[in-house]
């Protein structure tokens, strides 16, 4: 449309200014720090690409990346998957919609720390809920957070906690589908599963893409559950906890920033890849 340039500039301007001041400028400072060996808050020494060299030979970072990818797989399949299924179900029912919409939202309002504590007490070896149940049945206690199972055990609350978040986003997206679309489908005899696959999903494809990108970026920052349930031990270290250790505990801001840069680049690559994979599916109607 003519005169678009003016609007593009005008509409983007306020957001751009705020984000530049409070996010991009500070983050550029962090990137700058990644070329230094920092010692607390006051001393730093220029080391060139030393931190980046360290990053590429850091076994712990490699392991954390793999663990993060594993959790990401669970998140994209189960978290997004459950959310979509639940949203389709709730969208299809006649009464009780408001009830389910409300209760499915509950977990999100409870802080990650409190949910983590609950799962600490479910998984605890000595007196946790699961092991108490097992010993009531006369069975041996199980070490739920062992080296082989800890990551999967923690993936359960991680996935479950935010299903409601994507559920609401999907439901929101579905609300824009005009009801005459569904009526038309009904006349054509398309219903149930078919309706979902051929009508609903294509119509909210751009929202699904956003959700998957949010899921991917969210997983790269996963922290609470891992930190509180296993402290990154027993093969549960992920990028979020590793960065936290380096930056907030070790106060090595130089290397911490390097990891932050790594996470941002890695996340952007993943989401560009996702976008490419989903591109052909986009429908405008």
């Amino acid at each position: 449309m003519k005169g678009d340039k003016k609007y593009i500039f005008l509409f983007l301007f306020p957001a751009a200014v705020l984000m530049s001041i409070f996010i991009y400028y500070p983050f550029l400072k962090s990137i700058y720090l990644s070329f230094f060996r920092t010692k607390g808050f006051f001393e730093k020494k220029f080391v060139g690409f030393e931190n980046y060299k360290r990053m590429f030979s850091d076994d712990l970072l490699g392991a954390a990346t793999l663990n993060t990818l594993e959790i990401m797989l669970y998140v994209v399949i189960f978290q997004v998957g459950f959310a979509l299924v639940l949203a389709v179900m709730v969208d299809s029912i006649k009464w009780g919609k408001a009830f389910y919409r409300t209760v499915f939202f509950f977990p999100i309002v409870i802080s990650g720390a409190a949910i983590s504590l609950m799962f600490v007490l479910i998984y605890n070896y000595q007196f946790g809920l699961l092991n108490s149940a097992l010993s009531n049945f006369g069975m041996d206690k199980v070490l739920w957070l062992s080296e082989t199972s800890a990551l999967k055990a923690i993936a359960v609350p991680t996935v479950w906690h935010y299903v409601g978040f994507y559920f609401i986003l999907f439901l929101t997206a579905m609300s824009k589908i005009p009801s005459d679309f569904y009526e038309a489908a009904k006349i054509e005899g398309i219903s149930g599963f078919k309706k979902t696959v051929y009508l609903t999903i294509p119509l909210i494809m751009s929202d699904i893409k956003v959700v998957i990108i949010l899921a991917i970026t969210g997983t790269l920052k996963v922290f609470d559950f891992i930190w509180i349930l296993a402290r990154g031990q027993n093969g549960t270290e992920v990028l979020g906890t590793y960065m936290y250790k380096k930056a907030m505990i070790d106060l090595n801001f130089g290397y911490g920033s390097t990891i932050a840069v790594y996470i941002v680049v890695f996340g952007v690559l993943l989401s560009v890849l996702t976008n490419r994979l989903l591109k052909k599916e986009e429908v405008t109607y």
Partner: protein
Amino acid sequence: MQQVNRVTRTKKMARLERRFGASDIFVYICLSLWALTTIYPLFWVVNNSFKVSRDVMNNSFRFASNPVMTNYEKAFDRINMGHSYMNSLIMSISTVLLVLIFGGLAAYVIARFRFRGRNVIYSLLVATLLIPTFATIVPVYELLIKWKLVNTYLGLILPHTSGNLAFAILVIAGFMATIPKDLEEAAFIDGCDRYKMFTKIFLPVSRPVFASASIFVFLWSYNDLFSSLIFVNKENVRPIVALLNEISSQYGTDFGLMASAVSLTVIPVMVVYLFIQRFIEKGLTEGAIKG
């Protein structure tokens, strides 16, 4: 009488059965099972808020049949609880409004305009989602000190608004991207310019997504402890999370206090959510889409 009752009841049952096929029953069973998993934790937290820390640790799944009020007494001992709720609401609601206005405008551009650099902006937004708070907090705090905004409402509102914009823009743009083109074209023929198109078409049609985005922005702003502790940690501006953290975080966590703190934090979010939920409902937007 009884006879009649029974007859009407069987009639009702028959009608119900007709209305709910086997697939409906299956759907309701699935939804209810999931609902159990989401209701229980809230009950768990509230239940444990009536126990002393030791019982939370060792008997958290038992019903608090002898509720203790000590946690709430400790929490309400802080005379300015109400004031902190006010602070939280002022800062979080301002954040939500700013995010919706600025984010909405930006999202409209990204969803409906074709221009060079659009993909770059999109990638930049995704990157923004990934920037950790620790990597920005020190420079932001330095700026706030320089501008004398530490311990003022703006000192939290501005960083929070900026921090939530990327999320809001992506979600709102995702929603706007698939709004039917004919709406836009009709408006264009009617002589609307881009600004009118935004306020007359996209804003009303996108109400559900604005509502959803606002609840999450509110939630994150309201729950963000880290920035609050550093930017606004004085009584007159301190938000409720920071206040509750103060009573529950020191010298070995007091889990009973933590549970009561979480319960007290959750209430306003639930109220806001119930309020906003009405806007997510389909009926409200139906008219806009058709018109």
